[in-house]
């Protein structure tokens, strides 16, 4: 059965109508879905970097001076999204 929290669909459930409703929800692009699914891991990585910067003054100084190089040296993959996310949180480290 469809879960109780589903919106109700008024009958009739004709084949044509079901087909039409099915066609209204094409899959989202796979890359979008995968990026959204990776969100918790990305957030965890970001929090870890911020925490490290708070605890380690030298790492913090290197982050401020050259973000990409500091992250690469620390072993992080310097993806554009990660760089942007860390950059957005730099002000809270100053």
């Amino acid at each position, binding site marked *: *059965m469809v879960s109780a*929290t589903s919106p*109700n*669909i008024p009958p009739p459930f004709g084949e044509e109508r079901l087909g039409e409703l099915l066609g209204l929800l094409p899959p989202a*692009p796979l890359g*979008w879905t995968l990026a*959204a*699914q990776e969100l*918790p891991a990305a957030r965890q990585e970001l929090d870890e970097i911020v925490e490290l910067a708070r605890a380690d003054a030298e790492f913090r100084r290197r982050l401020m001076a050259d973000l990409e190089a500091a992250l690469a040296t620390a072993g992080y993959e310097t993806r554009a999204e990660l760089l942007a996310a860390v950059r957005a949180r730099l002000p809270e480290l100053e």
Partner: protein
Amino acid sequence: MSIEVTDAQLVERCRAGEAAAWNELVERFSRYVYAIAVRAFRLTEHDAEDVFQDVFARTYERLDSLRDDAAIRPWIAQLTRNACVDRLRTGGREDPTPAPLEGQTDAAIERLDEALAVHEGLRAISPDCREILDRFFTRDESYRTIGEALDLPAGTIASRISRCLAKLRAELEGRNPGSAPSEEW
């Protein structure tokens, strides 16, 4: 993840930090969020992608503030609606087509709610049926393409679709309560 998992159970597991539950939540609502952005609000793919990522980021960040776990669908719909309206207001829309009126988006989202309920019904029918219906109706594949992909004679696809639709209809009408997904076509 089991097909019996309700939205509320899924939310609870996400809050507990289960990675698989978050993946399932995104999978369950990805089509819905995408369709609201591109069908109801007619955003460009570029704008829709920003909205899509923004909605799931907010969902993740604010899951603790959801008062009724079973209300995740309307909550996500509202987050998506707000994100789309913000996007239209900031003028990020490159498409010259006029933005939809509020009444039009309400009606479109209502239809998408119905469509989502039908998609939820798909989870209760056999994987084979689910796949053939998804390929034909949402991916717009031809009988020939479906036949080749599933290693079935193209001449049998129409009748299989018809039988699978009948199963889906029975599921939605509650004629088949509590039954396990059948492996039969």
